[in-house]
């Protein structure tokens, strides 16, 4: 069978087309917004599109974000594959980062054990935090969206408090901890950039999640439960157990991201509100990647580019970086909907309300 006729490739091609079209629409709308609000729209928009490549340093910033977006995207993809809408990645990142910091600031932090132990502890803490909404749903039927969001707020408040009152050096009024010892910070892969172990961890995680989902019995069960929980029950798969384990595993990835944050060269310490809402944006990465782990890093690459571009645009021009939220919202709306690359049929469908309506209007 040639590539052209293989239905799998045809479907993939269609998906890619949709994603690219959604991106194009989003960028077009953003361009109009920038045009209307900026003093120098061409420069601002140009910065958004080209800035990450403008220097070695900015490229490093971009790759650093790609690693982090990949991890949060993986965590979301894993729970979405089980059809759970657990939004708890952000909370898990904070809890994971906190526990990794405990290791880094303890006497162990200056030994060779610091990094492996920090990562392990962060993953365990994240997994425990991911377990809570899963257990609450399976055992009590508590809605996982609400409980996981509440746990996010809780984790952020508590971690910020601990940093401010206990972990920051006393008397300085700083809202961050001391810099970790060198053994607790990822080594740089390229000197003087943020190319560090984070990207390696992200790539390994992609492979691990792919393997778990598509090459193990657990992954098959998880995908079955996600596809049709009732069918899975009839086939003898305990859906609630699978659900809990999916949320716990995603929690471990969230915790891992927390460790990558604090051990990474970008921080090397724990600071309040450190994630800049990035942990939550994995939702976009997972949706555009259609929850497929191997596609997650590709989406993260593109989205991280835009995200970095927006931040640099905010520094170098008069447009605030929040303009990127327009791109995010439009991409989610278009990719999640049955939107197709607009052909004639699309526009007809968009502006025609079904025949039922005219009949009804006539009836009144």
């Amino acid at each position, binding site marked *: 069978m040639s590539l052209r006729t293989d239905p799998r490739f045809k479907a993939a091609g269609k998906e890619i087309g949709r994603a690219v079209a959604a991106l194009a629409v989003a960028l077009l709308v953003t361009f109009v917004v920038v045009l209307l609000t900026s003093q120098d729209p061409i420069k601002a928009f140009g910065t958004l599109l080209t800035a990450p490549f403008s220097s070695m340093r900015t490229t490093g910033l971009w790759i650093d974000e790609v690693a982090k977006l990949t991890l949060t995207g993986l965590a979301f993809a894993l729970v979405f594959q089980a059809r759970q809408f657990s939004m708890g990645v952000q909370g898990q990142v904070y809890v994971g980062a906190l526990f990794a910091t405990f290791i880094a600031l303890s006497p162990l932090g200056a030994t060779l054990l610091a990094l492996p132990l920090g990562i392990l502890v962060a993953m365990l803490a994240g997994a425990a935090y991911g377990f809570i909404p899963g257990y609450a749903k399976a055992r009590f039927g508590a*809605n996982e*969206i*609400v*409980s996981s969001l*509440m746990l996010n707020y809780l984790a952020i*408040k508590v971690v910020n*408090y601990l940093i401010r009152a206990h972990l920051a050096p006393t008397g300085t009024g700083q809202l961050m901890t001391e810099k970790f010892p060198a053994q607790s910070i990822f080594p740089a892969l390229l000197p003087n950039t943020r190319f560090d172990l984070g990207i390696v961890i992200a790539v390994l995680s992609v492979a691990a999640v792919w393997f778990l989902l598509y090459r193990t019995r657990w992954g098959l069960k998880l995908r079955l439960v996600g596809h049709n929980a009732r069918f899975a029950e009839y086939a003898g798969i305990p859906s609630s157990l699978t659900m809990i384990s999916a949320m716990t595993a995603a929690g471990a990835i969230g915790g891992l991201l927390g460790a990558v944050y604090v051990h990474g060269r970008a921080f090397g310490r724990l600071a309040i509100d450190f994630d800049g809402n990035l942990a939550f944006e994995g939702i976009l990465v997972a949706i555009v990647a259609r929850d497929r782990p191997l596609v997650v890093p590709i989406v993260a690459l593109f989205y991280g580019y835009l995200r970095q571009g927006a931040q640099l645009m905010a520094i170098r021009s008069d447009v605030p970086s929040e303009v990127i939220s327009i791109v995010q919202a439009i991409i989610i709306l278009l990719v999640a909907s049955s939107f197709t690359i607009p052909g004639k049929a699309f526009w007809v469908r968009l502006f025609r309300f079904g025949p039922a309506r005219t009949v009804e209007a006539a009836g009144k």
Partner: protein
Amino acid sequence: MTELLITVFSATFFVTVIRTSTPLLFATLGGLISDLSGALNVALEGMMLISALTAVIVSVHAPWYVAVLAGFAAGGVLGALMGFFHLRLKADIILVGFAVNILAAGGTVFALSLATGGDKGTSINLVSKAIPTIDLPFLAAIPGIGPLLHSLLSGHSALSWLAILSVFGIWYFLYRTPPGLWLRGVGEYPAAPEAAGIPVAKVRFWSLVASGLLAGLGGVQLAMFNYVGFTRDMTAGRGFIALGAVLLGARHPIGAMWAALLFGVFDALSIVMPNLFSWIPAELIQSIPFLVTIIALILFSLRAQRARRVAAPLRSADT
């Protein structure tokens, strides 16, 4: 401790509770309507935020009631947007809801920096006109209980009274009118109203619009009465707490009112506690409403699960 008790049982605390409960109550009622129609509206947070900003910006140029209407309408427009993407373009309602939330979180900061002249600072805020309070001086003239009644019932926002009216209005609509029955039917078992010729998609669309309108009022109350001004992320999770309150209120308008009041009490406590117990860190006091929501959600789900178990033999196997 006695200080806390004295504070909690004072008339001013009651007034504070009503003030903090009002935005929650509007949002909860909004969540309730869309939930009953079978569409979980996770965008309450974003709708409140955008309505709050809209109201504040309009209030700079127009009288307060125009600003209230503008915020109200902004919520409705967002509801219609969600309905369009969910019902016509078949997008998952939860993903659509989070798209609205993301747009709100970033978009309001973006708009705020434009409105304040390109300031990219994070702590900027925009001052608003306020919703007037309703004073009832005649209550004080009642002999005996008059002064107490006056101190309890006077000085609330006009929207607080509207919120109470909405509770009973929505109750009447849902349980005493045919469209209310349709709405509940569409949420309960869409195939039946479909077969009876009720336009299911249309009912859901209008419940999303109503949901947005109500959440919009919640945002307006927050920005034009509780704080009188807009700051970034000022809703601080209230939209999500409202989602919990819908469930805690047993998906009933009267229950929604009690749930909103309960969360309002904890919100009010987090306002008065820093003055009484300066040794408790602010972050921990602020996290009380979130903790209470989780606990309440679990306790309520447990109760609902028991009720389902009792009712299970009576109903067919239904998840």
